[in-house]
């Protein structure tokens, strides 16, 4: 078991080299943890809302009472004052609970990982396992922190159109998976997500300044690298120029690079932001990349027999 709460709290990254079945177990545990923290987050979030409403209501009523009590007769004043103090106490109590709940909420929010990342990893592993030795070890490096986290900023530029605005670019290489198939082919699968955030002070017509920030997705690159035994697939060189025509990938994705040699293939596919980067789209694209590459390799195998 590699899921360690403390480590994940410090840096939300899951990194392991193990058999697929063990990794899948871990990822399921991570999913359970994530679901539980999502529930807790909602629970504390609701508590914050309730307490803030309670605090404001009791303090407002206390103030009204203070004013009203001043104009009342002596007999009512004592009772009125006690009631005011009680209400103020309730208000302070609610505020304290709200702060506590807020802290708990933000603590749980750290465990709220993007669900599609670990769910996708599990699905891909189960797909690749079909052609792997049961005992074979796979390396997985899965980053679960937000894509626009400060540490992922790669550069900042001036906004080309809006003066006073800047754009931050973020690169999130959130998945790297490495392993070996039964045909002794080694695979390395990586994803790299590019996002940008534009921000700056905007002056409205009335002369008021307002801070504006806008994030958007740029592109998602998926790279598949295969290194295979020459003896088995070496004749692939005759297919070099035509290999790219065997590639089938979903609409709204493009082949960014394809390099074929008698030792390996590198296929890089670019997903445009007009495509949802969800689990289904990613799984489909990655599966099609593996099938495309093996459509070439399986033919190369037929041409690679010795005399």
């Amino acid at each position: 078991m590699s899921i360690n709460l403390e480590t994940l709290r410090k840096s939300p990254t899951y990194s392991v080299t193990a058999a697929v079945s063990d990794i899948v177990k871990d990822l399921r545990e991570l999913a359970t943890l994530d679901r539980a923290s999502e529930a807790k987050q909602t629970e504390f979030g609701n508590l914050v809302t309730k307490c803030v409403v309670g605090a404001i209501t009791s303090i407002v009523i206390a103030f009204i009472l203070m004013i009203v009590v001043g104009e009342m007769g002596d007999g009512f004043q004592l009772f009125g004052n006690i009631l005011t103090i009680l209400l103020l106490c309730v208000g302070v109590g609610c505020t304290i609970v709200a702060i506590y709940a807020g802290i708990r909420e933000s603590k749980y929010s750290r465990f709220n990982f993007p669900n599609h990342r670990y769910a996708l990893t599990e699905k891909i592993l189960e797909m690749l396992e079909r052609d792997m030795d049961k005992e074979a070890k796979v390396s997985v490096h899965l980053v679960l922190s937000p894509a626009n986290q400060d540490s992922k900023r790669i550069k900042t530029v001036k906004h080309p159109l809006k003066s006073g605005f800047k754009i931050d670019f973020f690169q999130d290489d959130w998945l790297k998976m490495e392993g070996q198939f039964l045909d002794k082919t080694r695979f390395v699968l990586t994803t790299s997500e590019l996002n940008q955030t534009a921000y700056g002070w905007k002056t409205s017509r009335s002369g008021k300044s307002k801070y504006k920030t806008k994030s958007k997705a740029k592109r998602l690159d998926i790279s598949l690298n295969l290194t295979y035994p020459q003896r088995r697939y070496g004749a692939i060189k005759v297919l070099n120029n035509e290999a790219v025509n065997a590639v089938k990938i979903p609409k709204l994705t493009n082949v960014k690079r394809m390099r074929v040699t008698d030792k390996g293939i590198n296929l890089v596919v670019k997903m445009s932001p007009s495509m949802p980067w969800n689990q289904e789209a990613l799984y489909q694209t990655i599966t099609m990349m593996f099938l495309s590459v093996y459509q070439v390799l399986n033919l190369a195998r037929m041409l690679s027999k010795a005399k």
Partner: protein
Amino acid sequence: MQIQLSWIDPVTSERREPLLETPVALGREFASMPQEIDGNRVARIVLASERVAEYHALIDVANGELIVVDQNSSTGTLINSVRLPSSTLIDGDRLQIGPYEIQLNPSSSQTTSSSEIGASGECDRMVGFLFKRRCGRTTNIGCPYCSYPDNNPYYYDYSYYSGYGNYNRGYWGSNYYDNRDRYYYDPETGNVDFTEADNMSLEGEMDADFEMDMGAS
């Protein structure tokens, strides 16, 4: 000969992948198709559509090859989109009969058998997702194909890449596939040799190929 046909029922959208022993008759009316041909029991497949003749086509073996013969149907039988009265069939070929698009499954006809455990006591099925290999299990337990004898366990993933593993006419790589027996690879030198067809080989040896052949032998 055992074959596996695969199609999606146009009405129910269900995938059918029966393993069949030739001869195989295809038609709309069960009773209109022959029960026996040359003493062999006929597997009769009913395709429910007005555009399919009562007895539409027959798949059988002639001279060791698989053939399909149209039974003078009015809508015809299309083999890989070409209407032909009869044609030989190879792995991956597509038959169009009325609204039915039927594929001759690649791994099944020669390499897979329905009796999973062969004479050697090991499973003879070809298994694997990206590349095929002999199962070799001594029991059916854990074999994805044995658990789904009539179905492809990876059907949904394969549906992303239509024609996966098919290099026939009209598919990517068909010109290499057709000549696959003429290619040789020398892992020592990294050279790929291509042997011309027999009637060409004499001429070939006269010129540039001469040296290459010497080097490889």
